[in-house]
């Protein structure tokens, strides 16, 4: 077993999310906060505004003319889209790296994060959680943040983890816990605590593989889980952990996902992937 304090200390090596981005994150997660409040936060931060306008004016969005203010950007793209851009932009620096231990090359965890966030958003609309779409988008984007730190420890103990997973039927996250003493969900939740994420966001990060039975009753956590396994099944940057997580058919039944629905969501994700690839280049 590894020195857990040594692992936790490494949270400090991550690039913290800018204060303004975490304020926007918190506001956007609250269905009662007004869109105008969020727009105000953006306008009052010149660096964020400049970055946002650069992204909005990229060829990806194909706007008919150059936008020069947050107000204009919101008018063309809608505030939901703007919030998504701000959230995505605020975490991209950490995620855009390669990941030792999980066998992911540069940008692969980022591709997984952004794709799963878009799948999760689509699921939120399908399965009655549209009012929490920003929370769900953010949670899917950040769910594997613990992997950024745990990766090197996974690399160090990979043989042991691999034996537990492929000879003894452990899921990858249970094997991490068994060998290292901590898994990427727990470590991710600690990052969330340190960075003052909302309780709910921390909860989803901590339980996104649904190992805890009570988490399977929670709609938002279930949707993030579902988005994650869909990406795994599609091989969207599946690394050394591959598809080695548990499947819970009862949660699919509970929210009424049929076999045909599952295949339909995978087809839709495949159709959207070219757009996502272009989007990834913006951050």
């Amino acid at each position: 077993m590894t020195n857990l304090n040594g692992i936790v200390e490494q949270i400090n090596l991550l690039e913290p999310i800018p204060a303004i981005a975490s304020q926007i994150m918190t506001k956007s997660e609250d269905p009662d906060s007004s869109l105008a409040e969020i727009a105000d936060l953006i306008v009052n931060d010149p660096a964020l505004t400049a970055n946002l306008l650069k992204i909005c004016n990229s060829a990806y969005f194909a706007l008919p003319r150059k936008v020069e203010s947050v107000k204009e950007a919101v008018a063309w793209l809608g505030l939901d889209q703007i919030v998504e851009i701000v959230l995505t932009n605020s975490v991209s620096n950490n995620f855009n790296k390669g990941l030792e231990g999980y066998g992911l090359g540069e940008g692969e965890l980022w591709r997984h994060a952004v794709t799963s966030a878009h799948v999760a958003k689509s699921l939120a609309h399908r399965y009655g959680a549209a009012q929490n779409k920003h929370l769900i988008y953010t949670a899917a984007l950040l769910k594997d943040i613990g992997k950024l730190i745990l990766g090197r420890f996974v690399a160090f103990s990979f043989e042991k983890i691999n034996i537990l997973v492929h000879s003894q039927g452990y899921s990858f996250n249970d094997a991490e816990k068994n060998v290292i003493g901590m898994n990427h969900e727990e470590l991710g939740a600690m990052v969330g605590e340190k960075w003052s994420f909302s309780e709910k966001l921390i909860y989803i990060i901590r339980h996104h593989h649904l190992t805890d039975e009570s988490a399977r009753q929670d709609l938002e956590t279930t949707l993030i889980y579902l988005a994650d396994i869909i990406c795994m099944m599609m091989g969207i940057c599946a690394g050394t952990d591959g598809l080695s997580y548990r499947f819970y058919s009862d949660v699919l039944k509970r929210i009424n996902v049929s076999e045909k629905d599952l295949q339909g969501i995978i087809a839709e994700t495949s159709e959207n992937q070219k757009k996502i690839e272009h989007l990834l280049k913006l951050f």
Partner: protein
Amino acid sequence: MENNQRNANAVSSMTAVNFSEMKISSNPVETLVAFSIGSGIGMTIHDPVSGVGGVLNFILPDSTKANETNPAKSPFMFADTGIKAFLKALFEQGAKAENLKVVIAGGAHIMDQTGVFNIGQKNLEALKTSLGDFDVKIHHEASGGTKSRTISLEIGSGRSIIKTFGEEEKKV
């Protein structure tokens, strides 16, 4: 899609075949590769006589089950429409059914993903049904389990290479 099927001008190249895509080549220095396959299946086919080969990377078994997706637009997303179109394209380039060497990798599943939700298993079954219709046999298969795989085809040698994390590379 047609534009991507040939890359005859390349001097030496590796061409990615993303999911829901198919590529064919008769360029002897080209390697076609389907990276990071989960429940979908990467399928290489090579005809040593005509020198033509290709890779299909499909992710779903049945084109009639994908709600709003038009199989005519995305035939290579599905086993049924994809394999048919793949073989047809190979035959048009001079390949013959009796010469074909078929290698497949994929069809993995999430742990405990059984029954109707086991899309990896369904993909494998659909593939075998489709190949049976054309009387084409599988030369080598790396399928099932919970690992993701990468499969490539060297057009010149006709050799397929399967890579799986934690395992030795398999050349067939």
